[in-house]
């Protein structure tokens, strides 16, 4: 019925406005060689069966290779062409086996399975007027018969029951807490905390730093318990998850530039030592560790999203999506000439968050 409708509309359109490109109609259906030649048909049958049979062989090859090539417990497993023999054999066998099944199926479909051209006309998207009216009357009948408008008690209690289902979600989400509190605003850096090299844990002498030098550093407390020189409570070396978290947050880069190249912001003139400046290593965009420093341009680049900070200009963002300048750690030298912190960072390190804005 719908096909008739389509055709009628089509012919009406043609009558109204002659089609500049006439419909060529369906192409003439010609048979395949396998449809008319029994020899070709049998040959195709054999081809498909051969492909499936070969696939079985390769699958068996996979199983043989799995057991035959020993890799367990060997530091230098066998190689073919510079790659692991086991990987090449397993991947090659399984890949070829799957390819043969796929090729066989396609060959079967194209040469031997039914070969009819099928055409299906598109239906109009809009329902008929009767259907639309029927749907509307069914809806109003339902409203009338359920009496949802006449029985407010049932309606309200139902709404309450469904609304209450939100509570379990809130209670369960509470487990994500507790709220971080002031944790995000502080790191383990304190006054007189020694600046030590990451990995080796050695202290850094200010006089050893050359212009153009970069050191990836950490607070000394991760290598030795820290007692403030003026006396006070000793901070033990952190352990476990806390150590990992604190260490990730407190990571810094120590760089030395030509002091004339540096333009310290107001109040930051005494934050460095002879051109040695210390910045947080955590990008203020999404927190990637950054130490990609160009010593001649003084730019520190984040490899994740290309945020670029100018360390000679107070860690200012000069390119990329980062929203805040890189936090700077004020430093000084102790009586032996080693680099130590003046205080904690004066602003939160790492990416922005709600309370920080």
């Amino acid at each position, binding site marked *: 019925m719908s096909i008739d409708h389509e055709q009628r509309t089509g012919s009406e359109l043609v009558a109204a406005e002659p089609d500049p490109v006439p419909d060529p109609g369906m192409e003439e259906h*010609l*048979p*395949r*060689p396998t*449809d*008319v*030649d029994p020899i070709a048909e049998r040959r195709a049958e054999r081809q498909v069966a051969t492909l499936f049979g070969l696939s079985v062989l390769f699958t068996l090859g996979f199983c043989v290779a799995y057991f035959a090539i020993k890799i367990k417990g060997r530091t230098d*497993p066998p*190689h073919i062409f*510079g*790659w*692991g023999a086991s*990987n*090449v054999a397993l*991947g090659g066998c399984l890949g070829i086996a799957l390819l043969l099944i796929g090729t066989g199926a*396609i060959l079967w479909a*194209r040469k031997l399975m039914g070969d009819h051209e099928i055409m299906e006309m598109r239906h109009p998207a809009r329902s008929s007027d009767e259907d639309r009216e029927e749907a509307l009357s069914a809806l109003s009948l339902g409203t009338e018969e359920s009496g949802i408008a006449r029985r407010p008690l049932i309606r309200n209690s139902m709404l309450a029951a469904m609304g209450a289902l939100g509570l379990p979600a809130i209670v369960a989400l509470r487990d994500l807490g507790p709220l971080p509190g002031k944790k995000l605003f502080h790191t383990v850096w304190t006054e007189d905390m020694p600046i030590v*090299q*990451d*990995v*080796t844990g050695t202290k*850094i*002498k200010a006089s*050893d*730093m*050359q*212009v*153009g*030098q*970069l*050191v*990836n550093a950490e607070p000394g407390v991760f290598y030795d318990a820290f007692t403030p020189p003026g006396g006070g409570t000793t901070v033990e070396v952190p352990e476990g998850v806390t150590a990992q978290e604190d260490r990730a947050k407190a990571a810094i880069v120590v*760089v030395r530039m030509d002091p004339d190249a540096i333009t310290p912001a107001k109040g930051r003139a005494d934050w460095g030592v002879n051109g040695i400046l210390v910045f947080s290593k955590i990008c203020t965009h999404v927190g990637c*560790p*950054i*130490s*990609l*420093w*160009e*010593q*001649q*341009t003084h*730019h520190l*680049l984040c*490899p994740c999203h*290309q945020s*670029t900070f100018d360390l000679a200009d107070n860690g200012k963002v000069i*390119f990329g999506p980062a929203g805040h300048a890189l936090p700077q750690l004020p430093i000084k030298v102790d009586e032996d000439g080693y680099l130590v912190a003046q205080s904690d960072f004066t602003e939160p390190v790492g990416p922005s968050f709600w309370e920080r804005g």
Partner: protein
Amino acid sequence: MRLRLKSTASRVAGAVSRRRRSRFAAPAVLLIGLLATGATYYAVSPASASGSDSSTDAVAKGRNLFLVGCASCHGQNGEGIVTKRGKNYGPSLIGVGGAAVDFQVGTGRMPMAAPGPQAPEKKVTYSKTEISQLAAYVASLGPGESVPSKSDYDTSGYGTESIRRGGELFRTNCTACHNFAGSGGALPGGKYAPKLVGVSSKHIYEALLTGPQQMPVFSNDVLTPQDKRDIISYLKKNERTQGYGGFSMGALGPVSEGMFAWLAGIGVLVGFAVWIASHTARVRKREEGTS
């Protein structure tokens, strides 16, 4: 004046060529000219391998080489040249030391072929003797890092513990630019961190020591010679290790792998599908009994 000379010369040449028509004349003249040039050069130019140089001799020879090959950018006394706009045409070499020269000239980065964001590694132009003379001259300009000796960067006999420690140091200090496998990476403005595969231990050591171009300095006082050797032993171990998992695709991470999977892998499958769909044998002959 010049015109008259030219015409005289051409007249003489014409006379010669008219009289002697042997086809060997032109090659012979060329050969004699070349031999004469070579002999003059040999007699006049400074002998480069004349036994053991005293250090002042090396400095003097280095200065001669410097004036010919380096002074146009670095200044006649290595003081550097600043352009009118205040940019660095060639940086000052006072105080960079012999190690910097050995690295820059020994890897072919210097002399630079053309101005650009970065001096690329290329064919080495100077001989070993000439490089050591240049290094001696630049070292005489001011105190700097000297060329390391073999005992500084030799990592033969370094074991698992050194490689492990070197790996940790490498991942902390170097991977940001040079990639976790030492495959190198891009920097802003057309610059790049070169790959470290196939670089000699000596040149890695010198690069750490002097901080060439945009690379920061990792001086011996902070990153000790032992640390540097551990890093080198890690890199060498990486080079030796066979790729067990298959193609490393430059060890550049998911970018090259994804590109290969999407372009080569899926591309081949799509091409295969299109090829299958466009090839179907049909016969003109009607099936018997159906027409």
